[in-house]
């Protein structure tokens, strides 16, 4: 599903974010990428959604070599990968419904399809009663659920979650992780980027550890050891 082949990313001569990273993620896997701040976790997410380009190496997602992707194809790629960010990245002047629907509207989906899919997705994240709320009227956990709903709207094969619990308390964090597990059960590949040791250890799933931009461990049923 996801292949990172000899990926190196330098932001300038002295800043090497990733160095010769090789990674292969199978369809339907739940993978945690862990490591301390600045180890290159978020750089991997940014590379996967083509927000930045690698300095060297190739990235293949679902058979699509994204390192050679043309700029005008980037929106198409992003519609096929669901992404959840630590700071939620919700549109502040749009309601819950509009934030979720927006991801479909950008792809030119007809109104009928939007009206049928949005409630289903909001139902999955348990927000069907808060469709008319604006982001500032929601709790942190609810905001992240909206972000997950938006990420799921295209029924993506891959869901990238970059520190999704970073701004949440323990209870809301557990809710979000449960939701990600539920999504994974439906067959979506989930890549969880986090430095939350407790969560990673409780998952008992594959763990990839990064240190100073290099992949140091890849355990099938791993633990956060650093």
């Amino acid at each position: 599903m996801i292949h990172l082949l000899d990926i190196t990313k330098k932001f300038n001569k002295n800043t090497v974010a990733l160095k010769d990273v090789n990674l292969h993620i199978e369809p339907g896997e739940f993978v945690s990428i862990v490591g301390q701040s600045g180890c290159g976790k978020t750089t991997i997410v940014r590379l996967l959604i083509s927000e930045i380009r690698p300095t060297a190496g190739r990235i293949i997602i679902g058979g699509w070599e994204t390192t050679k992707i043309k700029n005008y194809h980037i929106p198409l790629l992003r519609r096929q990968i669901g992404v959840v960010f630590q700071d939620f990245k919700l549109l502040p002047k749009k309601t819950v419904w509009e934030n979720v629907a927006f991801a479909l509207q950008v792809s030119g989906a007809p109104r009928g399809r939007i009206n049928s899919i949005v409630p289903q997705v909001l139902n999955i994240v348990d927000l069907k009663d808060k469709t008319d709320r604006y982001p500032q009227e929601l709790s942190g956990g609810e905001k992240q659920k909206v972000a997950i709903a938006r990420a799921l709207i295209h029924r993506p094969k891959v869901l990238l979650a970059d520190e999704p619990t970073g701004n949440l308390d323990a209870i809301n964090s557990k809710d979000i992780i449960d939701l990600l597990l539920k999504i994974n059960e439906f067959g979506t590949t989930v890549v969880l980027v986090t430095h939350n040791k407790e969560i990673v250890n409780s998952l008992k799933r594959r763990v990839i550890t990064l240190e100073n931009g290099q992949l140091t461990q890849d355990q099938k049923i791993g633990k956060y050891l650093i």
Partner: protein
Amino acid sequence: MWLLSFHRSIIFALQSFWRNIWLSIATIFIIGLALLSINFLIIINAISDSAIGAVKDQIDVSIYFKNDVRESKIAEVKSQLAGLSQVKSIAYKTPEENLIVFKNKHQDNPDILETLKELAGNPLGATLIIKAKNLNDYPEILKAIDNPAYNDIIEEKNFDDHQLIITRINQLADNVKKFALIISGLFVVISALIVFNTVRIAIFTHQNEIAIMKLVGAGNWFIRAPFVWESVFSGIIACLLTLLIVYPGLNFIQPQLTKFFSGAEIDLIGYFNQNFLIIFGGQLLGIIILNVISSSIAIGKYLKV
């Protein structure tokens, strides 16, 4: 699908316009002020044009004929002068009319009136009052009047003093026009810069939203279009508000102007009505083009995500 996206871009623009109402009001206010300053300049130009036109209109050349010249001879001169392409109009005043005017003019001077009574009959001859189409045409007309064939019938020509006045007025009019052109150019550039930066600041406040839209897979056009529409709406509303301020303003200053210029014909409302399409159509088109360019440039900066 294209039509659907087009429709959505307008809906998003209207939504954003309404949900960011204070930002929209501030943008409209500044664009409106820029447009008002341009209209103010148009008013000043119209007043100065009319004032100079009124002064120019006061200029004419009078030929005073001897009192024994027959009317048919004067008609002959009149028809010859009327044949000149530079002549706009020629008015004929009979000796009797001239006498009445003369008496009225000197009604407070008993000596002159007494002298008139002592003279047998009307000492004044007929007069031709000639107006040129253009100030620059007077020298040609004056040359034609200077014909030696008219020496025996013309008592007096008043155009010697006119030469200097005509030259000065012409210079003044030219200078006023040049000055107005420079000031207008400056105003337009300053207004354009103000509008350009206002739109840029408005879009700057949306930079995070633009980045989010990119991250959820929106194409550049889909992001750009609502912002461009929004700035166009602001421009149109600002233009309409300017219109609603300018006309009552003109109604208010028109009587003051007429009073100030002692009844000279300065019809500002007429001027704006006659040039409505050029003045407001031009401003609307200008502001739309300017807003489209400014918003497109401003958004472009944030689309590189």
